[in-house]
């Protein structure tokens, strides 16, 4: 059987096109920014905290979870948020690093934790000011 037959070329092209499309989409998604970014922390799919990253200037830590549900130490610094230590086995959440206004979330699957970036824009748009 010939290796470079018509069918194999089609397979190659389809796979390559899909791959290129995905890489492009990934870079697009990774670089999409939101206005007035808020970080919302979810644990066990419940919101535990949200932080106004666009105006947060202080640096502080939040520890989310307990020994049974898994602990993630989250640091807010320079308007960015990330997990700095966790008791999960894979440490992927720690290696993901800090996010600021990009929509790709920080996830810790073993501890069921997610840090999601949402835009406060829609909510705040109709108000002249928001007291907090």
């Amino acid at each position, binding site marked *: 059987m010939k290796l470079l037959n018509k069918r194999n070329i089609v397979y190659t092209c389809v796979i390559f096109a899909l791959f290129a499309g995905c890489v492009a989409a990934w870079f697009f998604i990774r670089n999409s920014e939101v206005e007035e970014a808020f970080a919302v922390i979810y644990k066990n799919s419940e919101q535990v*905290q*949200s932080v106004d990253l666009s105006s947060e*200037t*202080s640096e502080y830590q939040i520890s989310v979870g307990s020994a049974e549900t898994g602990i993630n130490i989250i640091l807010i610094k320079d308007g960015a948020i990330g997990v700095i230590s966790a008791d999960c086995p894979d440490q992927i959440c720690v290696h993901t690093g800090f996010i600021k206004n990009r929509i790709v979330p920080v996830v810790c699957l073993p501890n069921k934790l997610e840090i999601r970036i949402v835009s406060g824009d829609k909510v705040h748009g109709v108000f002249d*000011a*928001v007291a907090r």
Partner: protein
Amino acid sequence: MKIKFLLLSGFLFLFCGCQWFQNVPNQPQPVTRTEYALGTIISVRVNHASGEIADSALDKAFSRLFEIERITSAKLPDSELFFINQNAFESTVIVSEELFFLLKSGLTYAELTGGAFDITLGSIVDLWGIGTNNARIPSQSEISKALENCGFEHLVLNEDEFSVRFLKEGLKLDLGAIAKGYAADEMKQVLAENGITSAVLDLGGNIITIGNNAGNGWIVGITDPLIPNEICAKLHVYDKTIVTSGNYERFFMYEDTRYHHIFDRRTGFPSDSGIISATVITDVSMTADALSTAFFVLGTEEAVKLTENLSGIEYILIDRNLNFSISEGIEVEIIK
């Protein structure tokens, strides 16, 4: 080809024309300026027909802000407050009229609220370090020791010579709970003196408005204490200040308990009165700043009792079960 070109340029012209008409001069254009001061983001939006007047008014208002920061900051080593904290126990310190006024106001609010608002909790604030990288839960003995160095009764002010004296060695003043309010009042005055009749000032979430927004009033949202990226209440104000104290601003979490930045002098712990958000709406931002902190510490019942003796103070108190207590003089639309 030619027709297409003509059509295209026609549309382009129309498009530009619309843009141009939208920018008709003499229509107040909002000018916004944002700076970092008093440990937070200060943002001012001014509506004025002349950009130059708006800019020069903003310049003056912000230089006033930085002046106040240099006096009231507990962190800047060359601030006047820092100097008092270092020296007022060893010797009587003569202070500027401005700082004296602030300290005196602080004492007045402390007496009014029975110590629920207190500018002398610096030792407790430092011990917990909330909002800094060194935040931690101190031991009970550390807290007791720090509490001994707190209390407005250890602060003596002499009005004749503008002097300050501490009666306790470890006393430490922290004007964090009124400095933003005071700065808001002062910036508002500077803007008004410089011809601004319409503006919104946002000092780290403390809101003060000038004018009535061309008759429409200002729409101000109150942050949802449980979901701080959302709004839980909406109100319409004319020329008022709105200040909220909440447990969601600066805090750290430990084992699912939230340790926030508003302390109860009676316990030395973050206040646990049941209130998670206290908003005060009034004319003077410093009063709103002090009272919202005091209400937060007092809890709904005592806070409401306190307002019976005060006039011109409106409030929105939210407890941890999301019950709203709203004063009668204000209309609030609760969004959820």
